[in-house]
């Protein structure tokens, strides 16, 4: 067993759902190799600790990190938290996510992004399929979180960011048994992501399967959003014109499991300025 890790977040000044959920994944992976839980040094910024508290980070981090209880729970008041960090390990968790997000989603998607009222249903459907991807393919727990931000400087619009990560076997591991042979020497993280993301392949023989990611892509495209999936050493994405993320990258640091990131932009610019949490 390795030495105990320290995750030093004392100087953290800003964090988004990808950062928070990624921290939980990193802590979980590190903890597998150690006899004690990794140590987490909490941010000194009260704004950041307050935001982490609002997002339910400390509850989610319990049992993953050892950390001193935050002294201040930060700001109350208005929040654009769409979905606090939620552990996803069973189908009941997916039901819980969908039920929790419905009311808040309708309000935020309408007021911040200018989406029609029906978008709340499509958003919930998308979250459901994202969470099921963890349960059906990862074989290990994961987390989901969503938040609205004003990306005034980056995009000039409000966005909703959704992050889903798991500590499972990854796309290559999920698909290897059924599909690796046909790819031969080309089989790897990149081809596995292409198979699932572009071609809708799944490890299940049922012809009704494999459409979750395809339908998520379609909905994200309708909203002019961006979606990327990172697994193993590769990342694949569907990026709109406003995003300069490369659609395919390999040679990244290995990521056990998978990370799905979605950014949904507002239809029109919001009235507020300055990037920051809501």
């Amino acid at each position, binding site marked *: 067993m390795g030495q105990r890790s320290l995750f030093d977040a004392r100087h953290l000044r800003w964090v988004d759902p990808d950062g928070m959920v990624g921290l939980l994944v990193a802590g979980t992976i590190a903890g597998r190799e150690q006899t004690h839980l990794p140590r987490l040094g909490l941010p000194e910024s009260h704004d950041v600790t307050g935001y982490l508290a609002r997002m339910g980070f400390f509850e989610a981090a319990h049992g993953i990190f050892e950390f001193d209880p935050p002294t201040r729970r930060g700001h109350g008041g208005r929040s654009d938290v769409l979905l606090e960090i939620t552990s996803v390990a069973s189908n009941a968790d*997916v039901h819980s996510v969908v039920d929790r997000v419905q009311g808040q989603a309708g309000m935020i998607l309408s007021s911040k992004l200018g989406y029609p009222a029906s978008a709340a249903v*499509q958003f919930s*459907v998308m979250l*459901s399929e994202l969470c099921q991807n963890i349960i059906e393919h990862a074989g290990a727990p994961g987390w989901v979180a969503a938040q609205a931000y004003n990306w005034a400087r980056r995009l000039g619009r409000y966005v909703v960011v959704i992050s889903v990560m798991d500590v499972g076997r990854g796309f290559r591991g999920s698909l290897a048994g059924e599909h690796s042979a046909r790819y031969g020497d080309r089989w790897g993280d990149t081809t596995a992501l292409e198979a699932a993301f572009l071609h809708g392949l799944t490890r299940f023989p049922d012809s*009704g399967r494999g459409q979750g990611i395809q339908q998520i892509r379609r909905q994200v495209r309708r909203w002019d959003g961006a979606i990327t999936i990172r697994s193993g050493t590769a990342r694949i994405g569907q990026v709109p014109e406003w995003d300069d993320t490369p659609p395919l990258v390999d040679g990244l640091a290995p990521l056990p499991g998978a990370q799905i990131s979605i950014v949904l932009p507002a239809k029109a610019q919001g009235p507020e300025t300055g990037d920051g949490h809501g």
Partner: protein
Amino acid sequence: MRELPHGPISIDVSEVLGEVLGDVRKSVTSLYSSLVTRPTGRAVRAAIEMQLIGAGSVSLSLIDFSEVAIIDFSCADEVVAKLVQQYLDEEEPDAFFVFRGVHEPHRDQIETVLRRQGLAAVVESHPGIFAVAGEHSDAEARVWTVLEERGTIGEEEMERILPDPADREALANLVLRGLAFRGPRSGRVTALSRLVHNLL
């Protein structure tokens, strides 16, 4: 209608969902309106199939989604596509379905899962307004509309109403695909919406 051994039955999906999830979620009744996750869909379909066992050798069911707030693609595949598919055969099907309350929020999911498997189903998209969702040819759509407007077409009037042989073939396809009912004795083809009218 008279040639169905038993009358059509109505199955409220939200009630079935409540029963399926009741054991684990009984404390929060509002949760029952979300038809999400594949295992949930599988359980709902199994519960519907149990109700169909007692519905006779040839059955017609009104599957009601009116009280369902959300249905995801996985559940749509399990509850709609797989339900329709398993009763199709080379012969005329022995179970017919009309899906009620397929409003705009549900329509895309149900259309998508049906098309993916080359299936189609009769749905009530607005109160009293029926449509064919899923995969269908232009001729099938045209003939289905004629049948829907008339309600029923007897064998003796078939050639007059559908003079084009291709249209008569399309009508036969509608029956084979479970989108219209042909009386086994009279040969009269009836729109499914007409057969479930008394349940609406």
